[in-house]
């Protein structure tokens, strides 16, 4: 069973793995969707793969554009290079790329991208016969579909459990192409489904999907044979990735140990919804989404400023944490610390010192280094956030 995280760059890759992901998926600078993200150079991919493999973890590289005539140039060389770097798999949707890997006998494991929108066992078998070892199912696959595909094909199944949803079937939308001239299926999607529409004089509305959140169904997914639990969001920041991966890691481990309670589940749901600033639902798992699974009037989305600081160091003897500020905080604020394999704990800020050990009242400069007295032990790369939910209230 694998927890699979998105990583838009090397820093995010390291945080995702540090916070409990078993594997990450990344995009190179060519042949991948999210063309306008920072993405990974071949050198970055090599470094990311080394970092992951040293920790017994995996890296998958997306090569999932829909090819146009001009896009084939350089593809073979790129695939060979990925193989040399020893990436653990490539995620592909165009059949030409799948067949080319087999024909050239490039030693690369091939996973089928969600862009192919596989939701039945026959389609999965078609790709299995081409040598694909894992299917990233369409987000529209229901519990029944997942079960049937597993039973009939025996393939590894990767299923999205969290993050943004396309309004359309993935790969079946070119609204961005016609509206902005940016090709959605080659990484240029401008997310037109999140824009607003109107019918004559009627209400302006959007057809935006709420996010996906499978927390209530993780156990069922384990039981029906899902192998990899995938989180969406290669464009997301380290706080989002750390929070989401840490939450699902804890949840999955508690399910395996049979120690998860309904009250705790509610707490984790609230943490995740707060972090994304969006409502989330299980979408297609049990039914076809209705009006309740959509936003109609847009979202007044403000940036999440819960992430207050990143722990850079902890002096155990003096109980002093060195923290890199990420958002404004001050003396008297109620905060909490979280980190991998750490029970989240609350703390009221009593003193703040700057780098020169001078007492200050507020940490108000981006990335400034401050020191806090924190009695409980912290680790490098733990995070400090504003305290919104108290776990004790849920228990």
């Amino acid at each position: 069973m694998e927890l699979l995280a998105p990583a838009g760059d090397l820093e995010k890759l390291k945080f995702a793995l540090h916070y409990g992901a078993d594997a990450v998926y990344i995009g190179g600078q060519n042949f991948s969707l999210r063309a306008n993200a920072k993405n990974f150079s071949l050198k970055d991919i090599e470094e990311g793969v080394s970092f992951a493999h040293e920790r017994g973890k995996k890296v998958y590289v997306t090569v999932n554009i829909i090819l146009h005539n001009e896009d084939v140039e350089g593809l073979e060389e790129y695939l060979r290079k990925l193989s040399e770097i020893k990436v653990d798999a490539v995620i592909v949707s165009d059949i030409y790329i799948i067949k080319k890997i087999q024909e050239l006998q490039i030693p690369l494991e091939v996973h089928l991208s969600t862009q192919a929108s596989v939701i039945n066992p026959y389609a999965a078998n078609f790709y299995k016969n081409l040598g694909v070892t894992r299917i990233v199912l369409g987000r529209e696959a229901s519990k029944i579909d997942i079960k049937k595909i597993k039973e009939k094909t025996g393939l590894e199944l990767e299923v999205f459990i969290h993050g943004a949803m396309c309004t359309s079937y993935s790969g079946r939308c070119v609204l961005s192409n016609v509206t902005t001239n940016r090709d959605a299926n080659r990484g240029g999607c401008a997310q037109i489904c999140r824009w607003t529409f109107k019918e004559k004089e009627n209400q302006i509305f959007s057809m935006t999907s709420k996010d996906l959140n499978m927390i209530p169904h993780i156990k069922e997914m384990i039981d029906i044979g899902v192998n990899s639990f995938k989180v969406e969001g290669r464009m997301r920041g380290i706080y989002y990735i750390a929070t989401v991966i840490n939450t699902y890691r804890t949840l999955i481990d508690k399910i395996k140990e049979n120690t998860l309670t309904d009250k705790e589940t509610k707490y984790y749901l609230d943490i995740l919804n707060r972090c994304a600033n969006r409502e989330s639902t299980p979408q297609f798992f049990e039914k076809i989404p209705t009006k309740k699974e959509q936003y109609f009037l847009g979202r007044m989305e403000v940036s999440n400023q819960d992430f207050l600081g990143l722990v850079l160091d902890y002096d155990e003897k003096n109980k002093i944490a060195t923290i890199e500020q990420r958002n404004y905080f001050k003396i008297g604020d109620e905060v909490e610390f979280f980190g991998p394999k750490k029970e989240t704990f609350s703390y009221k800020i009593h003193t703040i010192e700057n780098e020169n050990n001078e007492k200050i009242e507020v940490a108000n400069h981006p990335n400034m280094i401050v020191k806090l007295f924190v009695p409980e032990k912290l680790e490098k790369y733990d995070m400090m956030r504003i305290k919104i939910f108290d776990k004790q209230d849920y228990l």
Partner: protein
Amino acid sequence: MKNNYLVIPSHNLKKKSPNVDFLFPLKGYCVGFKKEYTLEEIDKDSYVYINRLLDSEKIESLKKILPELEKQKGIVFEDLGVLELIKEEKKNISLIFYATHANCSKDTINALLDYVDSIVISPDITTEEIKEILKKAKKKVCLYTFGPIPYMYSRRTLLKNYQEKFSLERKNELELEETSTNKKFVFIENEYGTVVFDEKKLDGRIFLNEENISYHLLNLDWEEIEDLSVWIEEFEKKLPIKNTTDGFLNQKTIYRLPPRKES
């Protein structure tokens, strides 16, 4: 050169004309059509259109009607599961694969042609790209030459959800305008999902008489045509047709934004 046509008929059209095969959207297995047809309503010796992505239950129900489909001229389909099903069931059915937005390169298309009799080139690419494909395709291919241009296919019932949310009259077809660009789209929906089209229809007649085309696909679902022979005659003479566009034929898309200029 004689052009062959694969025609999705308008609702009032019954009679074929020379060089025409009909393509009937099969009820329950299609989205994005004003008129769909039950098996009983489909003329003999026609093609049957299955453009839905099929869930596990629906593809099993398709298995049951394969003997009926085998009697027809062939199937045009979007879901590669249909191909695998037909192979597993050892049925002898002519197959045309139309992944609406994925059949975009000569290499992809040649890879697909190993498994099917023909494919339909996606209407998302330029004239130059199509000409290159026609030149390099290893079998004759089909071209979407006329009809509504599909831009998006959702499994969600977007119109139903919108109309329920705002307590509006229930309609399965609606023209909606994107508010920042004022671009108009037509939404068509059934219980299996919603398809979003351009308000204008594609006119790809520049490809008439090109070589390596087995069929020009004409989608007349939005038309009112009683005499197809007359319509095709006028079509071939390139007489003007209202409310048409050249779609992506002269619009090359990009996918990486140029770097921002330093201010």
